[in-house]
């Protein structure tokens, strides 16, 4: 009973605050490189800290990939924007609106051919001008078909 006495957390929530379009399936030859793009869309009025947050205490956006036969060469983030909010004394480094994170993979020469799913984790922490939501991690699935 007490648990439903007061529930401001249920009211605004952060459902659908950030959505990710999963990268399309890639067919890649062994010993070749390819780039996978993860499209991110934030609800208007909200932002996430960039991958290079302005304060040590802020939690930055980060895309990581689980170990797989693929080699992760580089994860690239867009150029962040410096925005001033009601809560910040000076502009802070953020992403807002729509943006893409790209990852360059390399298929090793010895990789076994066939379909596989590479799993990534996107960690972010979102805020509006007035409030912040707890850090969240969402899974990103990248289907890859390794061909000879």
């Amino acid at each position, binding site marked *: 009973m007490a648990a439903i*006495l007061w*529930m401001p*957390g249920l*009211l605004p929530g952060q459902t659908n605050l950030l959505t990710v379009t999963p990268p399309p399936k890639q067919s890649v030859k062994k010993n070749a490189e390819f780039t996978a793009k993860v499209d991110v869309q934030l609800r208007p009025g909200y932002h996430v800290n960039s991958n290079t947050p302005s304060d040590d205490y802020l939690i930055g956006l980060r895309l990581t990939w689980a170990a797989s036969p693929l080699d992760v060469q580089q994860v690239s983030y867009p150029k962040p924007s410096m925005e001033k909010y009601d*809560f910040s004394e000076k502009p802070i480094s953020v992403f807002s609106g729509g943006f893409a994170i790209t990852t360059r993979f390399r298929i090793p020469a010895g990789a076994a051919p066939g379909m596989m799913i590479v799993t990534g984790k996107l960690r972010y922490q979102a*805020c509006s001008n007035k*409030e*912040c*939501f707890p850090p969240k991690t969402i899974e990103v699935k990248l289907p890859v078909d390794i061909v000879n």
Partner: protein
Amino acid sequence: MLVSLHRSLLAAAAICGMLVLNVNCGNTRSVRAAVKPEKDRKSAPEFSLKDAHGRVVKLSDYKGKVVLLNFWATWCGPCKIEIPWFIDFEQKFKDRGFAVLGVSMDEDGWEAVKPYIEKQKVNYRVVVASDEVADLYGGVSSLPTSFVLDRQGKIADVHVGLVSKSVYQNEIEQLLDNKAHVQPDADGGNPVDAGPASGPN
């Protein structure tokens, strides 16, 4: 599960309706600096958590005091802005029976919180939330979330998100001035006097 969620949402909607004068529930914002009438206030759920020194802090320890119960986190920018206000309130109103109680929602617990509150020179008591306590207060999924409690431990107002310092100050002063309505404890004794010393952590 679905029934439970449905019930919770219905309850939230009901509370939202009750609070329509205080907050806009779709985009929760305080629109006035006035506390709810006494008859409409509900008791703040009791909890027991530890402070930075490992001492147990119960909300009921604060009965008899006006309390600003502030849910916050080190990663929350708007929360950081409020901290100097709360330091000021603690200093200014402490002798009139007021205390700030910060409840950190940091997943990393004291490892993250302790250096932060030392750096910010926080002069009020801080505890680290458990999932159970967060659930008691509705999950507290958005920060800052602050509950302004009267001397009887009842919720006089709630603010989700950043509001101005003057909103808090007006409400605190309003509740502090309302001494005539302090009720004795259930055992018929006097109202609990001081609660814990709300010194630095």
